[in-house]
Structure formats: C-alpha cells, structure tokens
C-alpha cells in the first residue's frame, strides 16, 4: 500500500491522535499488568507476614484458621488471638501497637480479601481438608511469602483437580448454587 505523503500531511492531526491513543493504551496495559505492585497481593492494614508465622515460626495453619476442619470457612483469628503471643513478643513494635489499638478500641481489623471465588460459587473447606487435600495444593506456599498474593480461582483450576481425583463434578452438588 502506497501512502501519499501529502495525505499524511493533510491528516496529521487525526494520525497524531490515533498514534497517541495507541501509545497510551499500550502504556496502560503494560503498567497495569506488569508493574510489581499488581502481583504482590492487596496491602493489608497490618503487614502480617505468613513467611514469619507459618514459615520461620512453623505455626500450624489451623492455629489461626481454626474452623477449617469443621466448617466451610476456615475462619480468621480474632484480634484477641494475635495478642495471645504478641502480649509477650515484640509488643512494642509499631505494627503490634496498631494491633493493640484495634483490640483496645474494639475495632475489627479490616483485612483485605486476597483469594477470590467467582460469583454464584460456594466452596467448602471442611470437605477438602477431610479428604487430606493440603492447604498448599490450592493456596500455594504461603510460608514463603510475606504478603499473600492470593489467587483468582477459576473453574478450570477446580475441575481439573476434581477430574483427576474422581471427585464430584455435579454442578450444584459440588460448587454452584
């Protein structure tokens, strides 16, 4: 295709605008998907480190997520439970001070949800734990990460495993409802 230079010259404003928008969109996509901040999970009100607690200190998952064996939700530790240890350990650290402040003002900690399940899908932790599916099979190696990156669970992830393990793949009985 031959482009007459005069045509480019005549249409220089539209051509400029088109090029500009292409560059802007490409830039947006690049920064949106590749900047370091997009892949390290949401920022939490207190920078709790799973690496320190589950990795270095080797605390069992179910100590802080106590209902995981007998309820669909694993449960979050109540503020009180954090202070069981942190009344004694690094109690004057400024993040622990913030924890104390939540406790003494009776404010629930607004943790940010890192793992996301699609709409109209319900997951039951109890069933998976009782089948001896380790936490890490879905959640990965949380003991190596300071900040939880989390995961957006998609159907393929669930159904691949369900098929491999010959588990229930009925729509309502297994996930939807």
């Amino acid at each position, binding site marked *: 295709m031959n482009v007459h230079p005069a045509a480019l010259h005549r249409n220089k404003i539209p051509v400029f605008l088109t090029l500009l928008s292409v560059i802007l969109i490409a830039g947006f996509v690049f920064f949106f998907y590749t900047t370091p901040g997009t892949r390290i999970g949401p920022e939490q009100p207190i920078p709790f480190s799973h690496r320190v607690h589950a990795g270095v200190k080797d605390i069992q998952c179910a100590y802080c997520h106590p*209902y995981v064996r007998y309820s669909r939700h694993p449960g979050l530790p109540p503020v009180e439970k954090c202070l069981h240890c942190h009344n004694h350990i690094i109690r004057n650290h400024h993040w622990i001070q913030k924890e104390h402040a939540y406790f003494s003002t009776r404010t629930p900690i607004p943790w940010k949800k890192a793992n996301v399940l699609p709409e109209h899908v319900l997951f039951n932790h109890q069933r998976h734990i009782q089948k001896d599916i380790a936490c890490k099979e879905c959640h990965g190696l949380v003991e190596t990460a300071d900040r939880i990156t989390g995961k957006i669970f998609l159907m393929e992830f669930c159904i691949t495993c369900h098929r491999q393990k010959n588990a229930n793949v009925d729509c309502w009985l297994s996930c939807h409802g």
Partner: protein
Amino acid sequence: MNRRRFLKISGIGSIAVAAGCTAEAEKTLFSLIHAPDDMVTGKAGWYASTCRECPAGCGILAKNREGRVIKLEGNPAHPINQGALCMRGQAALQGIYNPDRLQTPLIRESGGWHPVSFARAAELIIQKARAAGQNGPNRVRLISEVVGDTLSRVFQDVLQQWKSDGPLLFEPHAFESLKAAHDMVFGAPVLPSYHMDQADILVGFGADFLETWLSPVEYARKFKAMHALHNGRKGVFIQISPFQSLTAANADHWMACRPGSEATVVFGLIRKLHSSGRGAEIPGPIQNQISRICDTLTRSEVCRRAGIRKADFDMLSNRIIDAESPLILGSGPGMDSRTAMHTDIGVSLLNLILDPALPRHDFQNRHRIECAARRSDVSAFFEAIDSEPVELLLLHNTNPVFTLPSAHRLTEIISRESLFVVSFTNFMDETAELADLICPIQLPLETWDAYEGKTRVTGTLQPAMGRLTDAPAIGDLLLRCAFSDQQPVSDYKSHVAGQLNIQSPADWVNAVQAGGIFNQSEGPPFNPGLSVGELPLDRMMPDSPDDRPGAGLIVMAVPSLRFYDGRGANKPWLNETPDPLTLICWQSVAQVHPQTMAARGWKQGDVILFQSDFGTIKVPVFEWPGIHPDAVAMTLGQGHTGYGRYAQNQGQNPLTLLAPGQNPLTGGPSYQVPLSEVRALGQNESLAHLDGSRTQHGRAIALTCDIQTCHLPSPDSGQGLGMWDFPLTLPIPEGYDIRRDIYPSHPHADYRWGMVVDLDRCIGCGACTVACYAENNIGVVGEKQILAGREMAWLRIERYLDPDDMQKIIFLPMMCQHCDNAPCESVCPVYAPHHGREGLNNQIYNRCIGTRFCAQNCPYKVRRFNWLEWDRPKPLPLQLNPDVTVRSAGVMEKCSFCIQRIKDGHDHAKNENRLIRDGDITPACVQTCPTHALVFGNFMDPESRVRRLADDPRAYQVLGYLNTKPAVIYLKKIVQTLDNAIVSWPGRPLPG
C-alpha cells in the same frame, strides 16, 4: 439526544469504567475481637425463642449465622406449633431488618422530629412520669399489646410507682363475643383451647381457625388430624358463613348464609336438638328461655331467613345429631357484634347440649389472648384520658389509630396539648406520628422475655442475634425509669428468671434452650360452672334479615392471613405473597359476588366508592363466587398512611367504614356495616393478581378423588399416552420405557431427590412460599413489576375453582418439578439448566445468558427470570442466607429443592461416614408446613417415605402425560359429598 448530552453520558461511562478497574476485586474480611464460644464462622447456631407476631405464642428456633438471624423455623418441641410456622412468623425477620426501623429515639420539637439519645429519652420519661406522679393519682397511663405475665407485672409495678393503675392490654381482635358468651354460659370470660383433633364433625360459624383465630398453626395441625383419611373415613367440616374464607374453602361443605343470619341457624339447630330430646341436663330456667327464643325458628323459617337450602339444613342437623364427638366453633371475623354474640352464646349452648361434659374444650389450657381488654374498655380508656387530668400516655407496640375505627377521635385525644405521649415502637406508624416522643425498644428476637401462649405453656425469649440498634428492652427501660437506683432486681432478665420460678442457673439454661417450660401443671384448675340463672337472652331474638336498612349491601371487614391486624403490612414478603383466595398481592380489593357485579354493571377492577354512615372508601372490586350476594368482603391490614415505605399508601383500610361503637353486652366491636351508598367512579384499576386462570380447563393439574374410591387404583390409569391414561412414571431408571422415551434414562447413584405433595393435607396457607423467600434469597419485585408479570416466587400456591361448583376450591403447591425428562434442559443454548447426578435440575447462574427459552418451554411455569436487579434497601441484606447466592439481573432461577440443605445433608453423612438417611434433609417449605402436606426424600431408596407414598393409589403427576417424569408426586385431594348436600353456591339457581 443532543451532542452535549451524548458527551456527558459517555464521559460518565468512561469514568465509571476507569473507577471500577482494578487488578483485584477487593473485599474486606473483618476479624472478630473475641471469638464467642458458640459461633463458628460458616456454621449456623440455633436459638430457641417465642414468636410474637400474634398472641398465639408459637415456639421458634432462630437460625443465626455470623451473628445475624437469617431464618426462623418452628420449634419441634413446642406444644403449640410442633415445628411449624405460619407466613407471618416466617416474616418476623423483616421486622428486625426493616429499612424503616427507627434507630434512635425521636422527639417532636418545633413541628419536626429530632433524634435524641436513649439516655435523654429515658430522662424525659422519668421527668414527665415523676411530675405526673407528684401531681396526683392516675396521671400515667400505659396501653400495650398483649404481653407475657412477667412484663405485665413490670408494667403494674412501674405504674404503681407513679401512683397509677395497671396497664391496658389491647388487641384489635380480642374475641369479645366468645369471651362474653363463655362468661354467660360457662361462668367465666375464658378462651379455652379446643381438642379439634378428637372431633368427628366440626361445624364453624365463621371462625377462621386456619388464618387468624386464636392459634392458627395449632388448629391447622389439629384440623388436619381430624380431617385426614383414617381407615377409609375422615372427619367432616362444615362452615356456615356469608364469606368463604380460607378456612371455609377447606370445608367439606360451605353454606353461604345471609350476613347476620348465623345465629338463626345456630338456634334452629338447638330447636331441632331440643325437639329430639337432647339437652335435658341444661338447667330449667335456661331451657325455658331457649324454648321461648327458638319457638318460631322452624326449619323452614331458618332456611328462609338464612337463605340456605332445607336439604342442607337437614344434612347439618342430622350430621350433628348422629355424631359421636361433635365440636361447634363460634363466630368469626367480619361479623356484626350482635350476631357474633348471639352466635357464640348459641354455639356454647349447642356444645353443652351435644356433650354436657365438654370433653373437647380444654379449660385448663387457655389461650393467652383472653387477657386482652374488651374493645369497650379500650374506648373507655381513651375517653378517660380525655376527661381526666392524665399527663403521660405510654404506648407499647400498639397502633390504635390504625386498628380502631374511631381514628378521628383518637387523633384528637392523643394530640391534646397537655398530654405527653411516648410511643415505644420501632416504626413510624400512624399512632407514633402523633406522639411527642418515640422510643425504639428491642424487638422480640433481640430480648429476654417470657410469654405464656397458653395457661400451661410458658415460652421463653432470648436474644438470637447481635444488636442492630442501641435500643433497650422495654422492661429494663421502665424499671430503670421508675426505680432509678433502688431497682427490685438488677435487670429485666433476672426478673424473667425470678418469675419463672427458676432456682438454679442450670434450670435456667435448660428452659431457655428448650424454648420454655411446657406442660406445667400449676395453676388453679378451672371448672366451667353452668350459670343457673337466666341468660341475657331476652333481647336476643336473632334479627330477621328482611328488616335490614341501607342499600342492600353489607361490608364485612375480615382480618388478613397475611397482615393480621395490619402489623404485617410493612413486611415486603407478606405484601408480595398473594392472598390465598384472590391471589392478589400488594393491593386490597372488595370481593363481590358475580350476581351483584352483573346486577350493578361492574367489571373486574372497577373502582367503587363504598359509603357507610361512618366513612367512605374507594376500592377496586374483585369478582368472587365465594361470598353471599348481599355481602362485600374486604381484608384488614392495608391502607396505612404511615408505617414505612412498604405499607404506606398500599391498599385501603375498610375500618374507616365501620361504626366506632361497641355492643353493650359483649363490649365487642362490629366488623360489619350496611352501606348507604355504592357508586362506580368510572375508573378501572389493573389488579396485581397471580392466577392465569380460575379453572383448570379440563387439564390434569389439581385432581380430586372420592372418599369411596380413593383406595382403588384410578380406572383410567394404564399404559396409554393420553392425559388420563398415562401411567405414573417415577423419575428413576425403572421409569424408562422404550416405547415412549427418546432419550435413555438418567443414571442416579444413591439418591434421586423428590417430593410428595398431599393435596388432601394442603390448606393453601402459603407459609411454604414465605419460608422459601426467606431461605433462598428471592427478590421482592413490588406491585408495578407484579403487574408486568415478573413475580419471583419459586414456590407458589395455585388455587383452582371447580367450574361445576365454584365453592369447591383446591390448592396446589407448585414448584420446580425437577423432571427426569426436563423440557427446559433441552432448549438452552448454553446448557445452563443441567441434569445433576442426583436428579436435580441444576440452574447454573454463571452460564445463563437470559434467552428465557427454558421458561418458555417449561409446562409448569416455575422458572423465574430476573428482569431487573431487585431492591434490598439496607439493612435487609443482613437477612440473606450466605449459603445461597444472590442472583442478578438477566439470570433465570427456580426452586432448587434447597440444594444448600441437601449439601448439608451430604456433609453430615460424609462426616459420619454413612449414607443420607430418610428424613435427614428437610427443605424450607417442608419444614414449615403446619399440616405436613409436603414430604421430601430419595426415590432410589425403596423404603423411603416418598417412595412408599408414591405407591398410594391417589398418586399422580401434574401434566404427567407430557412424559416429563416429574420428581414431585401429588396425592389427589379426597372429597366427600355429604348426604343431601346439594351444590348450592349462591347465585346458582336452586333446583326445586
């Protein structure tokens, strides 16, 4: 659209897209401060309590998830309701989470409402009450709904502290005539409970015991106990009334009598019994009186006055005379006070003549509502406020300005300048609007209390949820106000424990966990003593209907199954669920006989102005054969001018037509009034009704069978392919027939879920419908969308009239049939309806693209499309069941057999390493049914209840000849034709 607007809108659009654009869908997870011992995230906790939506006092179990109550179920251990609950009980949740619930006290200052703190409100009450107490005796008055003994005594103590008389317990439906009749005949104004289940014939003169009368859930159960098939026989129920209520629609025979002629029929029966030598035990003076009154009431005279057939009257009297254990029930709603009194006296005498020992009356275990004040006392109470120097009026959970016909006079009294009015209520109702201070208090599901539904049944109430407001309990607040620092007990809760005579903390825990203390034997025994003197019967010659004044039409105002006295009108579920007979939601109508409609040239929905001597009302008319041509029936409870967004300006209040006075003998009000003028206004209103048709047009939908032949297999059913000879085909592999089926059958591993619906037990009360709304997060669409045909109920009660006999009504609960050969599954382009391995017809919301082909192809019309995003103003979303997803616009949905409960059943069974047992899983509709009309179970298990019930010769499938193989098996309703009873609905030309 001009260019400017286009730019504006596209600008908003791109900003919205940018704002919504993040890499993570961020949601917040809040952690608790302390973990309560009895709360596990994701698991329900159950708290036993007592329902306070009406004075019956049913026991409930409140299901708590993460601190909020999400569902109410009947307490199976409670003697009154035994696990069932009516639709009003189910909807109590929408009182707690009502978006119009008041959060703080409001004070009227300079013409407007201003929020104040609870402490300030208490201060004001203390200040006003102390001043009133110092100024003289009896200057503080308290009017309350019927409460338990404990709270009632607290009211008494508190008022005494302020030198005033005790409280007035007010209920709009207080059964004055029944109490007065029992006073005259049995010697005390009591409301005994009835062993209806032990009767072989039940005759009612209007009592609507399946809707609002005394204790509807209890009597629905007892009624079906006597009316179910036992050894080829069932009890007989005959109702005589001008209006066919839901109760009358469940009768074997309903006789439409002229309004005001019920007592004539009762005394006609007494005369007949008397002449056959019954009633010798009655004291002489009364016998003489009876003969005097009944003298002229010959068979033909009774039939002439009441407008009933002689054959019907003969049948009725013969049935009663022959009965072994008859029970006669008295007056019902919508009667004028004189007739009601005559009827109830007559009925008491009739019961006495039939069975002098009164074995089916339980005078030891009486209904709590007997402590409600008579209407005349209520009027006197308000008049006294006007004439005496009363300074402070306290109103507790009561709305007399709406529920009494004398609204003008009450408004005048309550708004008097020198009177300070405090309304303890959570809603801005018509009475609260006139108060000076509105103080919200804890609702029954948030508070400690006790309530004696019956003399020997004490129900306890406990907080079943976290707090939504800072409101105090009324008991605590008043004790604090009256006694400040020298309170007799530390708080109201310990007061309750003291009243219940509980010694140890363990006993207290046991009582609260059980939901109360049942079958107490304490209390003095009550023996009905027949009065030996003359009864005040002299002026009680029943009216002759010929000398009625007016335009010939009489209005009957009947209490509503949905709204009771109007307190349910602010609950969206109750508005959205249709009236069981008219199937109209949100609106109120006047029910008029087709003959009257034709004679006056009215058409369905024409707005008519009805005028009595006391007021006027404009209501659309609804053609309905179940009413006497002289009567117009309107249900009470709607037509609020306040009471929140769902009640305000919705429907009409027929109380405005009624006379404000009371009967001097009973103290009861009249719910009937002759119309002085009736005029069509030339407007027509579209009625928001849910029935496509009143009749079945000869299709095999809701079927009946005769009691004589119901044990025999239907002669038609065989191996044909027609509507009547298509065989019952269970939705299991055995149901496959190579001659009929194109597709192979579905394999089902261990389970194939299904339901059996016994049409002979279904009374059409709609409790299941509301339970389904609560359990499954179903959207409420509102009047406008109902008119557009967009209702969302997963379970509806269809009502069909018999074209040959319009008084014969059959109710059919219709939900997704979970067909094994489902027409919806084969037409979806994206496989959103999917056949599950346990036979459920799964609807996958994520897949659904909203073509609506499935709804089009469903012969049962049970699929519901979300045309819009349904409105749930805060805090209504707190009620949502977290185990069920909330569907959004553009998605099809339908009954899932409560898949979340099936999954729970699987969980339990897997934890215990066993298979699911029959009865482990109970869907919400099955759970709440007062008459056990629904049974859920596994068709693959040959021993399951559903499988055995499917072998009943009455079993059939709705539209089964379409070879859909539905998993809902219906059992035909058993009808019995009573000898001599000839089809005689009003308006039909009488043969002979």
